């Protein structure tokens, strides 16, 4: 007769365990968070790291007890570097998986592709990459840099005595929307600063360009006009390695013609031998080499999570970190994950940057961030040579004549406006 109770006990235990395992799903006890980054295709090189970062941040938050007493559950999808697929996957995340917020996208094309979905289904996208500006949407929080938080301070630095007092400019770029817009802003800015048009050279190359001989020789030639010359590079991911290899081989030293890049970070340098590139610059809001207690703690726990001491951290990772933590704070403040309530709560919230200071969400859905200029070192890291006070992100660049006086204000998500003409107080449609 001892057997029956034991079986019964076993059954009960089994049932309890099964219940335990499945209970959260049945009881709707988790908050789902969407992760929309390409894990295959050309953009996987950059976006895979951000997917890992999101899983890391969510795991950390769950260790702290989750959010609103519930555990967070990541839902990871792979839009495969395919812009229309981004929209489809975003719809799937919001409509089918019922996620509370989505963290994702890298390229501007993918962001533009998902925008209508987020508007239609009224959800929130946290976008963690530096971009060309000229946009402010109710459903998007831009945690990366706007042009005035990256491009313009970088140009200012090169113009300064300390940065080499550059007088002649080459804007070297890949041919797509981000460099085109950034260069439009920079060209106007340089002209406003009194740089004559013959001292500005803009050159575009196709995606994935690999034969840089002519371009690098042209930079050398442009630099031989007797004025200090600098290069502002908005060359996209894959084309960077051959570009820098050619620079190194043709012997262009940073002391003579410095190159400042907006899309080259620690990750991109990992595939290069940087001994001949020492001194070339990058402008970001974050570098791994930043020496603050917050950053050291972040890097240590990241290495622990990913179980690899060699993995680098980079600027979009910090942007994802800020976006996630600001969202957590907004949900806690609002007491719900409801989109409009969270959007109302998030404006004005602050969270400490990894670089010191705090990031505040502005009414235009951008952040305040300090701008850092780093010089490439022989070990593939950056030495910070200049750091600004936190700069508020400007959605509509004040440099462009057509955007003067245009602001965005989402203080109240229901009545807010993304393209407000401050002179006439009218809310126009974004161009």
């Amino acid at each position, binding site marked *: 007769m001892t057997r029956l109770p034991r079986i019964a006990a076993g059954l009960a235990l089994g049932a309890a365990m099964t219940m335990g395992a499945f209970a959260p799903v049945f009881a709707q006890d988790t908050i789902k968070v969407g992760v929309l980054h390409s894990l295959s295709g050309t953009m996987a090189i950059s976006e895979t790291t951000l997917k890992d970062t999101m899983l890391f941040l969510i795991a950390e938050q769950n260790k702290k007890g989750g959010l609103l007493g519930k555990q967070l559950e990541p839902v990871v999808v792979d839009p495969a570097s395919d812009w229309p697929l981004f929209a489809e996957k975003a719809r799937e995340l919001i409509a089918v998986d019922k996620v509370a917020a989505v963290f994702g996208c890298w390229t501007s094309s993918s962001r533009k592709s998902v925008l209508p979905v987020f508007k239609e289904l009224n959800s929130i996208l946290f976008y963690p990459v530096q971009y060309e500006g000229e946009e402010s949407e109710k459903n998007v929080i831009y945690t990366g840099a706007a042009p005035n938080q990256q491009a313009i301070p970088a140009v200012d630095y090169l113009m300064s005595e300390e940065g080499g007092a550059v007088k002649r400019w080459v804007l070297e770029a890949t041919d797509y929307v981000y460099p085109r817009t950034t260069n439009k802003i920079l060209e106007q800015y340089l002209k406003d600063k009194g740089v004559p048009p013959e001292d500005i050279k803009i050159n575009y190359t196709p995606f994935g360009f690999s034969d840089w001989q002519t371009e690098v020789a042209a930079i050398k030639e442009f630099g031989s006009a*007797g004025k200090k010359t600098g290069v502002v590079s908005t060359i996209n991911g894959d084309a960077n390695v051959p570009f820098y290899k050619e620079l190194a081989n043709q012997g262009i030293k940073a002391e003579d013609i410095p190159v400042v890049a907006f899309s080259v970070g620690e990750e991109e340098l990992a595939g290069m031998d940087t001994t001949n590139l020492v001194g070339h610059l990058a402008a970001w809001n974050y570098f791994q080499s930043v020496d603050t207690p917050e950053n050291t703690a972040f890097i240590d726990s990241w290495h622990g999570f990913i179980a690899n001491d060699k993995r680098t951290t980079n600027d979009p990772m910090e942007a994802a970190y800020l976006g996630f933590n600001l969202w957590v704070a907004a949900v806690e403040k609002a007491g719900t994950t409801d989109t409009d309530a969270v959007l109302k709560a998030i404006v004005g919230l602050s969270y400490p940057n990894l670089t010191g200071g705090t990031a505040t969400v502005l009414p235009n859905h951008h952040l305040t961030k300090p701008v850092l200029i780093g010089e490439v070192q022989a070990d593939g890291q950056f030495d910070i040579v200049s750091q600004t006070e936190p700069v508020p992100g400007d959605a509509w660049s004040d440099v462009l004549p057509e955007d003067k006086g245009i602001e965005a204000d989402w203080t109240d998500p229901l009545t807010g406006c993304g393209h407000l003409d401050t002179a006439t107080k009218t809310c126009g449609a974004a161009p």
Partner: protein
Amino acid sequence: MAIRLLRLIAFLIAALAFAVPHAAAQTPDIPALVDALGQGSFPEREAAINALVATGDERVPPILQALADGNLYLRKSDAKVVLAAKAGSGFALTNPLDGADLGPAAKAEIDKIKVNNGLRGKIRTAIGQMTLLSPDRTTRLSAAQTILKNADPAMRDLLDKALAAETDPQIKSVMELARAVIVLKTDTTIEDKRAAITTIISHGDRDAQTVLSSALADAPDELKPLIADGLATIARNLQLWDIAQNLVYGTSLASVLLLAAIGLAITFGVMGVINMAHGEMVMLGAYVTFVVQNLIATYAPGLAEYAMAISIPSAFLFTALVGVGIERGVIRWLYGRPLETLLATWGISLILQQAVRSIFGANNRLVAPPSWMTGAFELGGLTITWNRLWIVVFAIIVFAALQLVLNRTPLGLQMRAVTQNRRMASAMGIRTPFVDAMTFGLGSGVAGLAGVALSQIDNVSPNLGQGYIIDSFMVVVFGGVGNLWGTLIGAVSLGMANKFLEPYAGAVLAKIIILVLIILFIQRRPRGLFALKGRAVEQ
């Protein structure tokens, strides 16, 4: 701010105090000056560097070099400047002045002394000044070049001394140019300046152009026409060199295109298989190079310089095996059905990309160039980079070897027989399936070789192959299907056309123009430049 300014002034005074010639009675306190490098902002550091340079001590250049290389650190405990080298997880410290061992330190105990581009330039000039009389030829040459870059009038006496002692013609010419530039900057007679300008014009290179165009604005009026004439002469001269330089670039691009396309010329040209996975074979070759390099670094560091040489056969064999596998596994079931072949090989290419991404990660991998493949050399007015030169040589060797295999070996004979008339070849006792597999393997292996070369100039990433597949098809179709010479001519003409268009049209437009031209060309001659003739073609 005021304190900083005071400190700066104090430094300047100190610098001045030490600037007296070394004959002065008191010896400068070099250790204190070295420690001063660790303090303050960039301008203060610059003052400290100047103070060190003013001592003229021979121990200074290596210390400055270490500072420029980022090897000087500040020990936080006693604010001493130390030389640190990575040792395990921490650093091994030495005294920068006498090399005495100062024991190990953890990363948190020391702070790197940062330099920026401005300081690095200053250091380079300072080292140049201090090493202009060095017995070592390369040191002297780089010293002369830095002096030319900065052309500080204070250097004139030193330069005269160095010029008198110099015997090497190349260094002498740089020094003469530097001297002329300095003369141009100082207050001397018009005649002296005229002579200096003539010297500069006679150099006629990019440096001379830079110097003259910056001198033009400040020059006395009577010299302006001379400078303007000189600039025009140099520009004409450089224009000729530019054409030659474009030829070099074109040759280099042609060699890359040839390497990428020649494997395809075999699989697509000879066998007629539309192989969309060709680019991935190139990519696999590059990854084999990466793996070989890492294995050598781990197990036989002594062979590191030969890593490239060892990669070549390894990459060929590996990609050839993968190629044979694909042919036996997939393509042989699809002969005669080009559309299915296209889709299947496209699928294979995606599978290979994602497989590599899963194994090696999505990030770029570093294939370090061997020392004989880095840098560039000057040939007249041309700049030729070593890595590209070696790739041209490599492409020629691969092309010649393939010609040999196809024309002088039994396998080549069988391949040609099978392509020209499969059934007849089969009737003559040739095992056509075996020949098919070998041919595809050969094509893939050659693509792997291309990967070894491309690892030197491009990303080693899963996407490497995609950038080359379109270009490869263009070369093969343009050159004429089934003809290796056609591929060679195709690669050369596309490479040259691209590089001659690029300076005028820009890279984006150049690519479009080439594409349009090829489409038009194919309309006129659907079989490409060198069409195969004969009955086999008609089928």
